[in-house]
Every structure is written in structure tokens, then in C-alpha cells.
């Protein structure tokens, strides 16, 4: 089964991909499907012996370009449709034991180019409305493959959270005539919540952080997507991201688990949610950690109320993370 069902009570689509129940689950390192295929070793997903960054179609996709017909017929109330889209796997390194924080700034710079290239390719599909690169890292967030990797999903509509962002941006622009993210960058620059100041990007704990040590990385310029970044901006994004991630590991003293997502301008769709001029490129990084040995879970208020409760003030988290990021040695 690979289909989408519309939830009329929340005005959103839910994807069912039951084939993913059979996906590879926490294999031992010797059987890692994301390692390179080495002489005498097992055949993996990646046939080369060495690589820097590899991107390929997910073997167990939630969305595909050839989805089967739905298992059930939709109704006027609950429409059902094939789950069209793209799901790609982005492997950052052939080193099974590395992390994005440890691969170094040059490799992250190459990854930025890979993100840009794949974003442009997926956005060229006229049936795609939104492209979302992301990384789920660490067992604390439910990762099933430990080899350092991220993913890119391309959806046939703008998903609920980016759509909500678009509506908020439209409301702010109607009221002020300006981009809400540009106003955030102007307000936060030089302030107590800043973690890393780049020339093209600003990293900081947002005043509304949903996770105790959330860091957002905002483009200083009103740029909608990664492909629009020039070489200097891509260099800066790599430097800022590398320092933020190394700073996390230094601060927590562990290999930090996190969810990282890249929000961009929509590339299709209709209505105000699809207005590409509202989109402002930014990354959101959400570690589940709230202290040594303590995790933040999405509980009743967050799950049923959609209302986040945060245990650490952003004005406290910001200086802590800034100090860690300033002192850490970032691999080149």
C-alpha cells in the first residue's frame, strides 16, 4: 500500500506506506546497506568502493513516481489518491562511523552542492510542489540506519508546517509589507540568542524555540531555495552548519541526536501557500536533548494541542551554545 488519504478534520493529507514495515532495521555495521561495496564484502546499496556524497532513490519509499492504485476507494469526505512523489537517500560519506559533524566543512560544502543539484532536479517535476531535504540523526530520534545519511522528500503539495509558515509570512507581509524571516534576521543579529554569525547566514536559538536547544540557520538575504545561493553563500552555509553541529557535540559531550530540516520556497501548488515569493531559506535543527541524560518527548500538549512547552529559555540556551560553538575545533 502506498497512498494518501485526506483528513478533512485537520485539512491535511496522511501518507500510508506499508512497504516500509519491511525496511532494513538497525543492521550490524558489517551488514550496513549504506556502506560502499568493498572487494570481498557484501553487496550494498552503493556499488562503488569509495565515494564522497551519493544520492539514490529510496528502496523503501513513502512516495514514488509510480505509485499503485489505492487499496480503498476514496469518498467525497475522505479522498484517497496514489502517493506520488520522490524519496531520495543522501549519504554524506563512505565512513560508517562518521557523522555530519565530523566529516568537515569541505564535505558539508559538497553536500550543499548536492542538495542544490537534487533540489533543482526534483523541483523540475511539474507534479511536485515542495522539496524537503532533512536528516534524522541518532537513536534518540528513531534512526534505523546508523551510517551518516539524510533524505530528500518531494511532495505533490506543500506539507502542513511549511504551509503554515507560508500563511504566517503572507499575514506578516500584508501587515508590514516585509518578509517575516528578513525581520527575524534583523532583530536577532547581534542579540543574546545568536550562536554563529556568518556573512550570508545567521544561526541562533529562535525566540520561540520549540525544543530546548533548537537552532535555526536563516539566510540573511531573502533567498528562497538552495540552488539560488551563489558560491560564497554556499561556502558560508557550510561553515556555519559545520560549526553549529560541532558545537552541539561539544556542548552535550555526546554525538548529538537531532532532526534537521531545510525549509525553502514552494516550487508548485496553488494559492497563497504556494507563493514562492514568501519563502525564505532556513534550516531548523531540533535535538531532543534537554540536559544530560534527559530527553524531551512530544507529549500530550505537543501532540494533541499542537502547543510546545519548552524547558530552557532561549536566552539561556543561546549563550551556552554560542560558547560551545566558539571554542570547538571544526574539522576542515
Amino acid at each position, binding site marked *: 500500500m502506498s497512498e494518501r488519504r485526506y483528513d478533512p478534520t485537520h485539512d491535511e493529507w496522511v501518507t500510508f506506506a506499508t512497504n516500509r514495515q519491511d525496511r532494513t532495521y538497525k543492521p550490524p555495521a558489517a551488514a550496513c546497506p549504506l556502506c560502499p561495496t568493498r572487494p570481498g564484502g557484501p553487496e550494498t546499496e552503493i556499488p562503488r568502493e569509495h565515494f564522497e556524497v551519493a544520492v539514490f532513490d529510496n528502496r523503501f519509499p513513502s512516495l514514488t513516481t509510480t505509485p499503485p492504485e489505492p487499496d480503498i476507494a476514496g469518498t467525497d469526505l475522505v479522498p484517497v489518491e496514489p502517493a506520488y512523489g520522490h524519496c531520495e537517500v543522501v549519504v554524506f560519506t563512505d565512513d560508517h562511523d562518521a557523522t555530519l559533524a565530523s566529516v568537515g566543512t569541505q564535505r558539508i560544502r559538497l553536500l550543499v552542492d548536492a542538495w542544490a543539484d*537534487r533540489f533543482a532536479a526534483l523541483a523540475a517535476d511539474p507534479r511536485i510542489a515542495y522539496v524537503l531535504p532533512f536528516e534524522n540523526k541518532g537513536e534518540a530520534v528513531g534512526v534505523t540506519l546508523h551510517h551518516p545519511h539524510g533524505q530528500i522528500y518531494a511532495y505533490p503539495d506543500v506539507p502542513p508546517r511549511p504551509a503554515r509558515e507560508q500563511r504566517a509570512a503572507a499575514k506578516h507581509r500584508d501587515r508590514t509589507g516585509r518578509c517575516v524571516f528578513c525581520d527575524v534576521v534583523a532583530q536577532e543579529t547581534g542579540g543574546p540568542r545568536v550562536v554563529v554569525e556568518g556573512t550570508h547566514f545567521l544561526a541562533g536559538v529562535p525566540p520561540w524555540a520549540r525544543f530546548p536547544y533548537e537552532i535555526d540557520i536563516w539566510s540573511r538575504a531573502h533567498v528562497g531555495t538552495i540552488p539560488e545561493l551563489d558560491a560564497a553563500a554556499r561556502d558560508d552555509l557550510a561553515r556555519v552548519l559545520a560549526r553549529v553541529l560541532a558545537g552541539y557535540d561539544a556542548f552535550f559531550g555526546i554525538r548529538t541526536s537531532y532532526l534537521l530540516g531545510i525549509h525553502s520556497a514552494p516550487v508548485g501548488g496553488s494559492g497563497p501557500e504556494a507563493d514562492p515569493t514568501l519563502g525564505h531559506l532556513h534550516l531548523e535543527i531540533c535535538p531532543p536533548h534537554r540536559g544530560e541524560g534527559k530527553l524531551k518527548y512530544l507529549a500530550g500538549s505537543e501532540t494533541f494541542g499542537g502547543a510546545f512547552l519548552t524547558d530552557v529559555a532561549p536566552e539561556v540556551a543561546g549563550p551556552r551554545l554560542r560558547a560551545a560553538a566558539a571554542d570547538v575545533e571544526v574539522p576542515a
Partner: protein
Amino acid sequence: MTTPDDDPTRGSGSPDSDGPRDHSAGTTTRATTVGLVVTEERLADGRRITYYGISR
């Protein structure tokens, strides 16, 4: 309708990725002016794989 999946030799077109291409043996390689090398291949089951590297 042509989608990115329809054409295995498709170039995926970032602003700085329009260099010469090698279409031999089912492999498409794009060398770029900024040292980025993009090589597109097909896995045994037909899925696409793209390698990104820095030319040295």
C-alpha cells in the same frame, strides 16, 4: 509528461553544473567549472544513483 525519472541521461542542472558530459556505458558525468563532478548511474534494479565529488 516527462519527469526527472524518465530520462537517465538527464542533467539535473544547478547553476554551476553545465560542464561537459560523458555518456559512455550508461554513466553521465558532469564536470563543472568549480570542481564539482556529478556522475549519474543506474543501480541494478533501475533506481538512479548520483555521485558528487570534488575533482582533484
